[in-house]
């Protein structure tokens, strides 16, 4: 589904990604972990070109999205993204937040989008918040709405950029729960996170990034029980 070939990304003289190669299958739940500054967020943000790679290729559903003639806006419709800081639109109600993209991009009529919004709100457990403004919600609720908003476009893959890192500890669970349900429904997911429990429980594969590259990957059980690379051993000893 997603093929990453020799992906490079530099900010000025600072090289963040140093030739990442990765293949993600449909239905996989890939969790990316690593120390800060290892390039994991940049890697994720390159997948939908929020960061423009300085080198390499990304093939998504058979289409080279790094090619010059690709309409990235059309590609992004099929990739939902959830941010660390939620990034809900504060001037719109929850319902309007969810409906905005499907209606403005004319993939749904207003009624269809309304129905979809209520459906998604029920799914993330907030059916009564449709007409609230984001500022009236807790962090956990906002992040659940952000997930609903990303799902509104019916994406083929969901990208999560540290979705629980900005939350108070007691709200982390509710967001992870929604993500777990999403995984159980068969959604393809790429998740950058520090939640090792989530990685262990939900991931089909865990990637460890360090110094701008993926240095080790494995299915979760083996990954945590039997790390090979010294950097990973060191990292796990600090976080577990």
């Amino acid at each position: 589904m997603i093929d990453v070939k020799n992906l490079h990304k530099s900010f000025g003289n600072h090289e963040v990604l140093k030739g990442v190669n990765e293949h993600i299958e449909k239905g996989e739940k890939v969790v990316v972990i690593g120390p800060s500054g290892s390039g994991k967020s940049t890697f994720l943000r390159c997948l939908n070109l929020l960061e423009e790679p300085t080198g390499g290729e990304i093939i998504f559903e058979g289409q080279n999205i790094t090619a010059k003639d690709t309409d990235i806006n059309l590609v992004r419709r099929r990739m939902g993204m959830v941010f660390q800081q939620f990034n809900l639109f504060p001037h719109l109600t929850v319902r309007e937040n969810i409906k905005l993209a499907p209606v403005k991009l004319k993939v749904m009529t207003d009624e269809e989008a309304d129905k979809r919004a209520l459906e998604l709100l029920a799914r993330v457990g907030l059916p009564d918040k449709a007409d609230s403004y984001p500022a009236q919600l807790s962090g956990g609720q906002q992040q659940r709405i952000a997930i609903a908003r990303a799902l509104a476009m019916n994406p083929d893959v969901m990208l999560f950029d540290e979705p629980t890192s900005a939350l108070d500890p007691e709200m982390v669970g509710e967001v992870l729960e929604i993500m777990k349900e999403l995984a159980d429904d068969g959604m393809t997911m790429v998740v950058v996170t520090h939640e090792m429990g989530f990685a262990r429980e939900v991931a089909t594969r865990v990637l460890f990034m360090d110094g701008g590259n993926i240095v080790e990957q494995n299915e979760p059980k083996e990954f945590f029980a039997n790390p090979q690379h010294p950097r990973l051993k060191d990292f796990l000893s600090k976080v577990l």
Partner: protein
Amino acid sequence: MNGITMDQWLKMVPDSVVNLPEGLRNLLFQLYQTFIAADRWKWFLNGLKITFAVTIGALILGVIIGLLIAVVRTAHDSRRMGKSNIILSILNAVCKLYLTVIRGTPMMVQLLIMGFVIMVPKDDTARLVCGIVTLGINSGAYVAEIVRGGLMSVNPGQMEAGRSLGLNYAQTMRLIVIPQAIKNILPALGNEMITLLKDTSLVSVIALRDVTKQAQNIVSNTYQAYVPYVSLAIIYLVLVIILTKLLGIFERRLRESDRR
């Protein structure tokens, strides 16, 4: 056109006025001369129409120019490193030149140049257009910087969230960033509106008969400056107070979504 003399006036008014202390009587006579004689209140009214026309016209033009420039400048500044766009760079250079020239020269000088060098209007309508265009161009430069500040004050995550949903740059700007920026720029924009309203008093130099020009005409007809000019000040003051109140109401309505 000079109206009447004090003596003629005293014969017209009731005795109770004639018997007033001299200072007060003088004031009443001046008020009569300024507003009632020769229907001069109509002069003020006609002047106000021009003042409003110039203010509103220049405001609309200024906001359009300001918004366009702000978007160009913001798009240019938020461009990804290493990615250059020739057209955007040229537009940005033009915008910067415009900002430098307009903000670097006095409004009065701009009016003189537009009125007597560039546009040289021959009739009233042309003069009105000239006034609106000059003030609009001037205001646009200030609005541009206000709007740019407002756009930059919106969290970059908002742009990313919009783009990640598949909206293009223009849609994200229009639907997500600008509506939020407006809330932040409204106080400064209101300030600019007030400045603009008062700056319209300068259009008299291109022979546009705004309310200030009319007051000057009354002074040159009655040889009395006190009441016409003080009245003029009060007119501007009242207009500004009304404008301030309206902006306050508008601002409160925009802030509704912030309420918890």
